[in-house]
Each structure stands twice: as structure tokens, then as C-alpha cells.
């Protein structure tokens, strides 16, 4: 079933970037986990890499409107996100898979995705079709009427992605989406990402360098609250030419960029 597009969606865009951040500062508890970050993203699949504690999840949570920035500017779909803005319209076009994906175990997969579609204020007539499409896309059609608590870890992750894409979001934020997926499922997931890339701004935060190289149009590397690298997957691989840590060119590139960045930071001090 084809989705009917609202007037807002077909109107010409008046903004340059789907997600734009300047000198963005976001707190995670007491720590300034995102500290002076510049970012501009349009349609496509953007991979967000970085070591633990780099601020990836904090950045994703800020983009998902969970956290309010404490400094700098953040604009989503051209609309500034600050204390005074009504986020309702914006949230209708965001899809989000949190790192720690909570769910109601007694709901069936279909009921859960339906529930999220309802929370995203989708027009009622569109919901059943959209739910079926999202569930099918994640390969859960045969488990759609099983309860969430009966699903395996990988299936739960897919159900989590299904709820994130049910409203055909313009901004799709996936925090560790491939955790728990088996190799075949990861291949299917990469194909889905490529499919979405055409008209959606997808941000995938992950530890898995090879997922980023295989599926992303664009790679970002974060360390200590800032962006330290931005480029195409090929650029990441090129950065690691020559011997070094890692089993693949991309992993070597990842390690090399981090090492170089940290050395520069040391020197600067």
C-alpha cells in the first residue's frame, strides 16, 4: 500500500541539511559527552564510529530529542531544537532505536509496532499497512502475532528497527542496530539501509567497522565528544594504508585515525 504524503513532505525543502549542528554541547549526566561538535548531514546512510565513551549515544539521544543541548545550535529539518520549540511535528518524522531498547513483553510484535505508530500520530487508516510493511521488511512477518517476550535477541533488535521505520521517518536514528543479528540478518539489514538511503537521513551508531564500510555512504568517527574524521568508506580504508592494528583496511584506518588524533591532542597540550 502506498503511503500518502502530507503537504509538508512534498513542499520544497528550505533547509540545506537534514541534521545540522554547530559547536554542539550535550551533557550526559555531569559529563559533557558531546563537546563542540560540528555536523551537517543530508539524505544517505551515515555511519557513526568511535570507541566506548566517545559520546556516540549522547549525540544520537540529542538528535532523537531525548536530550536538550546545553550549548551550540542544533537544527533538524531546518527547525532549531531548543527549549522553546514545540517538537511535536518534528517527532512525527523521527524514527529511533535506543541502545537499550525497552518493550512491553506481553504485546505481540504487530501490537507493539502498531502502538508506536499510534504514538507517532500516524493517520489511523495508514497504520495497519505501515505496520505490516515494517514487519515484513525486518523479516518478522511469520512472528508478527507472537508476543515480544518469545523473541530471541536478534529478533527483538529487528522488532526495534521495525518500530523505528514504521512511520517512514525522514530522520532515522539507530543506536547499535546490528547487535545480536546473525551474519545473514546483517546482510539483509545492510540492504535495507541502502534502500532507505535515497530519501532518508539515516544515522547508524555502531562498533562494527565493517557494517559501516559495507552499507554507509558516509563515515564519521567520534572521539572525546568531537568529530575527528568524516569521509567516504574508501577514505577510511585509505587512512590505514600500511601496517597497523586491525584485520581489514577499514579497521586499520579506524585505528590509525584515532591514534593520529590522540597524538595531535597530546602535542597540542
Amino acid at each position, binding site marked *: 500500500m502506498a503511503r500518502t504524503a502530507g503537504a509538508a513532505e512534498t513542499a520544497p525543502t528550505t533547509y540545506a541539511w537534514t541534521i545540522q549542528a554547530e559547536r554542539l554541547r550535550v551533557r550526559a549526566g555531569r559529563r559533557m559527552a558531546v563537546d563542540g561538535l560540528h555536523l551537517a548531514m543530508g539524505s544517505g546512510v551515515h555511519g557513526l564510529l568511535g570507541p566506548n565513551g566517545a559520546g556516540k549515544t549522547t549525540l544520537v539521544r540529542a538528535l532523537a530529542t*531525548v536530550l536538550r543541548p546545553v550549548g551550540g545550535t542544533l537544527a533538524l529539518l531546518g527547525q532549531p531544537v531548543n527549549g522553546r520549540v514545540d517538537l511535536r511535528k518534528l*517527532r512525527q518524522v523521527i524514527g529511533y532505536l535506543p541502545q537499550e531498547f525497552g518493550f*512491553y513483553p506481553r504485546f505481540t510484535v504487530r501490537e507493539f509496532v502498531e502502538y508506536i505508530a499510534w504514538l507517532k500520530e500516524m493517520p489511523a487508516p495508514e497504520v495497519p499497512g505501515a505496520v505490516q510493511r515494517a514487519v515484513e521488511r525486518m523479516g518478522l512477518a511469520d512472528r508478527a502475532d507472537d508476543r515480544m517476550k518469545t523473541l530471541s535477541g536478534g529478533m527483538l533488535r529487528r522488532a526495534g528497527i521495525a518500530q523505528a521505520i514504521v512511520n517512514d521517518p525522514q530522520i532515522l536514528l539507530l543506536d547499535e542496530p546490528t547487535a545480536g543479528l546473525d551474519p545473514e540478518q546483517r546482510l539483509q539489514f545492510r540492504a535495507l539501509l541502502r534502500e532507505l538511503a535515497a530519501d532518508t537521513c539515516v544515522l547508524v551508531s555502531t562498533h562494527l567497522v565493517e557494517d559501516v564500510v559495507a552499507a554507509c555512504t558516509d563515515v564519521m568517527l567520534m572521539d572525546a565528544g568531537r568529530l575527528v574524521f568524516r569521509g567516504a568508506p574508501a577514505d577510511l580504508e585509505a587512512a590505514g594504508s600500511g601496517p597497523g592494528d586491525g584485520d581489514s583496511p577499514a579497521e586499520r584506518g579506524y585505528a590509525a585515525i584515532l591514534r593520529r588524533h590522540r597524538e595531535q591532542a597530546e602535542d597540542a597540550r
Partner: protein
Amino acid sequence: MTGRVVRIELRRSDAPWVAAFIAVVGGAMIYLGAARSPHGWTVLAVGQRDLLGLLWPLALGAGAWQARRERRRRMEELISTTPSPRWRRVLPTAVAMALAVVGGYLGMFAVGAGYVGPLASYFPIGSMWIVAVGALSMVPAVWLGLAIGSRLPSALTPPVLAIAGVAALLVAPEILFHASQSGGDPPGTTLLLPSVAAARTGTMTEFLTATARTHLTQVLWLAALAATGLACFTAASRRAVVAAFLPAVLGAALAVLLLPGRLSAAYVFDQGAIAPVCTADAPKVCVTRTHAAALDGLRGPARQALAILSAKLPTAPTSVAEDYGSTHLDVQPQRAHTVLVTVRVTDAGRTADPPHEILWDLLAGAGTRPCVDVNQAQREQLARHFRARLVAAAWLIGQPPPADPGGNKDRPADHETLQAWETLRGLPATEQRARVAALRRSELACDGRDLLDILVGQGGPR
């Protein structure tokens, strides 16, 4: 779509478990109560209202538990990114929980109805109002639970709330009852408590029903309380939470103005329940419609009693009727031509006592109701009063007085009673007759004289 979400919540939230728990556990309690004393629809409905002292805290706790679901299931993060305003998101939960507790309450009533229904000969429509108001009262309970649980989302909130609810609802009535000075009749504001119907006063019988004004006032108050619970649960800001208290305050103020001054004034005789069902032939013997099946058992001893009275006393009554009033609280002169008697019935509504025991009841006090205020009279005064009444019956029947006219008829009465009987029998026959007649006159007139003195005292009858 919202309707669809309500259906999902009805199946997948705690709602079905709460409904089943109330229906099964509450049903068991009401079954045990109904099986012990199946006194018709109104008593069943009022008895269930009294169980609200336990059901209300249960609904409060269940609401608080359900309110913690988003936190318990770590859904807060995902939900905080959805555009839906809080009231829209939580409304289906509130509706599902309300339907669950109302359903549980009605299921519980159905258990009692299954027992009372086949036995009751009279169905008072007013009893359904008592059930409906009771079911409605469960809604503010669960919504207040949701509100408190969402404002204080600790794991301790549900159990603490439930325990505090039990303590408050069982203790508050006690305080109100003890604070009341008018002979065990608490103030009308007691009706603001969901648990207190009338059974607590000890005067609730199958012959009473609540007034329409009582129902309407309670509905008003409970609806206001429900509005506060829902508004507080759906509130998204601190200011909205404060504003949510407005309906409850207004409702309480209005209810206090509308409620009767005393709890007993909230209940009146159910004219349908007390309508007389009489024998076609004279002398007339009547029971209430509620106890229509007891007429056969009462007819024999009633006519025997009338025959004895007319043979032995100068002015004898001519009919017998069932006493449906709580005469011990109602100290007023009685009519001379009718003997009133309290009829104890079996589960099936037939007379519970054998004919000779009913005869003793009918002739106690020479065919009168005891005119003595049991709440005010001294213990010794009461003993003398009932001893004299028993001796009068013994004189009429011509047998020594039994120990306990309502119990074992073979055990002899206490020494004082036997002595009084002997003394009476030792008087000249005309004197005996005059003294029993005087006792009867005194009791009918409710003049407060000492009956034992009339019967066997030095002064003799006047």
C-alpha cells in the same frame, strides 16, 4: 485507532489480571458472605459495598503498579521521542484499567447473585443502584492509583499505597463511628467513604434501601474524585497536577452540603420489600413480600397466639404481622390490634424456627414488641424487662419459662425468672390476669415503667 489501542491495553496490560483477581478473590469473599446469610439482593449489594474497604486499596495498588510500566519496561526513552502528548498516550491505559475494575466488581456481584438469585422472592430494583454506585467507586480508586503511581514511580509505591489504603479505609470509619455521639449513628459524611454503606450501623436489613439523594450525592462525589484521578494521571505539568485537585475539592464541598446529617437518614424502608402479603381468611396473618414464603410457617402459631390472647386477656389483638422495623432503636407506642413478630427465615425464605418457638416469640410481653432502648438502658434494667416479658409468655402458654426463648427450650430459666413466675402464679387468678394485662398496656404505651414490678411487685397493677 485509539479504540484499537484500548483493546490492546485491555488484553496486554495488567487490566485482565486485575479484573480476574477481583472477580475471583472478591467473588470468593462474597460467596462466603452470601452463603452464610443470603438475605436478598439489597443485603448482598450492601455487603459487597462493605468489601470496598479491601477492594479500594487493591485498585489503588493495581493502578500504581500499572503506572510504573513505562519505567519498569525501560520504555521511557523511546516514548520521550514520540510526538503524542501525555494525556493521549495514557488515556487508553486509564480506560482499560477502569473497565477492568468495574468488570471485576460486577463479576464479583455475579458470584453472589448466583447464590442469592434463586432464593430471593423479591427483586428490589434499588439494589442495582447500590451495585452500580459501588462499581463506579472502583474507577476513582484505580485512577487515583495511576495518578499517584505516575507521580511517585517507586517500586514501593504500589504496596505502600495498598497498605495505607487498607489502614485508612478500615480505621477512618472506626474514628467516625466513635466520634459520633448519637447512639451509634455516625454523621452523614461517612457516606463519602466508599467502604461504608449501612451494614456497619447494624441496622441494614433487606427491608431498607438507600434514598435516591444518597445515590446521586455519592455519584457526584465519586465522579469528582475520578476526574481528579484522571486529570492528575494525564497531567503533563506541575500546574496541571495542582489544578487536578479542583474537582475533588468541589465535589467534596457539594457532597457535604447534599448528604444527610446522619448515616441512618440515608436509608429508608423499601416500600416494595415491606409490602404485606396476608392470609385470605381471618384472623389476618401477614408477612412482608420479602418473606412471602414464610407465611405458611407463621400462620399456625400466629393464630394459636391470637386464640390464647383472646381467651386469657380482656382486650386482645386481632391480627399478626411481621415486624420489619428495627424496633429496638425505635422507642414508640405500638398499635394494640396487631401482634408484631420478627420472622427468622431459612435460606429458602421459610420460617427457620419450629412452631412452638414462634409461639413463644409471639407471646413474649403478652404479644408486644419490647419497648426499651437497648443502647441507653442499663444491663440490669434490660434483664428485668426481658425477664418480665418471658414470664408473661409463660403465664399465657401455661408452661414454665425456658432459659432462652430464642434457643434451647428444655433448659430451665435462671433463678430470678422462675421465682417471678412462681410469684405470679401464687397470686389470685383475677390478679394474675390483671397484672399481665397491665404489663401489656404498659409495653404498648411505651410508658417506661418497670415491667417486673407491674407483674410481681408489691404495688400491683394500676
